[in-house]
């Protein structure tokens, strides 16, 4: 049986093809989606060498969402991102991410999803909706911005805004 992270990763390419009869013609976009999948796989395997290799040296990462989330909000440069992203993941456990859409045009790939899980420090459960925007430059991720909000469809898991 696949893990939630594996299911998430395996659903990336089918989601890219959905709602687009001409997806086969989108070669630049398909390459970027493939690179994004490799990036997620490296993160899931904790292969930080490959993870780092997916990023430009001047990569920027930013998270916008409820102030109560215990995340590093802004990271600049490959070293900060490679150190900061695992620290963000380390705040969480029992993560159950579900991909709901992948939309790509040119240098950009947008990922929509929802996730439930638990904050390690407090033990409280959370339910989030998220959108991740990846901007590629010369085959590497140059910018990641993420918008998060509490999932109102899971009110028992609401987090503080």
């Amino acid at each position, binding site marked *: 049986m696949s893990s939630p992270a594996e299911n998430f990763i395996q659903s990336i390419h089918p989601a*890219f093809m959905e709602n687009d009869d001409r997806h086969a013609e989108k070669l630049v976009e398909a390459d970027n989606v493939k690179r994004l999948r490799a990036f997620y796989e490296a993160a899931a395997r904790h292969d930080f060498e490959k993870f780092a290799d997916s990023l430009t040296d001047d990569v920027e990462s930013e998270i916008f969402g409820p102030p109560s989330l215990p995340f590093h909000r802004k990271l600049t440069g490959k070293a900060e991102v490679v150190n900061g992203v695992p620290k963000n993941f380390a705040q969480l456990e029992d993560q159950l991410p579900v991909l709901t859409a992948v939309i790509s*045009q040119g240098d950009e790939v947008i990922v929509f999803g929802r996730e439930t899980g638990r904050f390690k420090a407090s033990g409280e459960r959370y339910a989030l909706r998220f959108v991740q925007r990846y901007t590629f430059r010369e085959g590497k991720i140059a910018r990641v911005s993420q*918008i998060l909000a509490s999932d109102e469809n899971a009110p028992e898991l609401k987090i503080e805004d």
Partner: protein
Amino acid sequence: MNSAAQQTFVESILTMFKTNDPVFNQKIVESGNVEKVRCFFQYVTTGDFDAVGKLLAVDVTAEIVGPRSFPICGKLSGREASIAGIRHNFSEIENQTSRLSGIIAQGDEVVVFGREQGRFVQTSHDYDLYFVQRFIFRDGLIAEFFELLAEV
């Protein structure tokens, strides 16, 4: 509503669609959908809700997810309910200034990124938020609308 700023927002939609994509002119389906999104914002900006309705599928669904303190979050189904919801949401805010930061279109979907500042009418509190909107088209009409909001 800050009319000049909103008009700039509307006019920047097609320009933004072409950014970062050297083959945008080959994307006929996407260009058509982006033009409809531009019309959607144009009609909303001018308060022409009959025209907005003509862009929506009869069974359109609309969902806005964001901070609970925002009086515009929720879920709606159907054209009439969605138009009423849009009218209601715009009646809750004033002095809006929106800036576009991205348009990404693929197949039947258009995603809009931006930032909006304004004031809630009832509380007179200013707001400043990032937004992302996802439009899904079916048979040339908006069949699904989803928006995620985060305070700056």
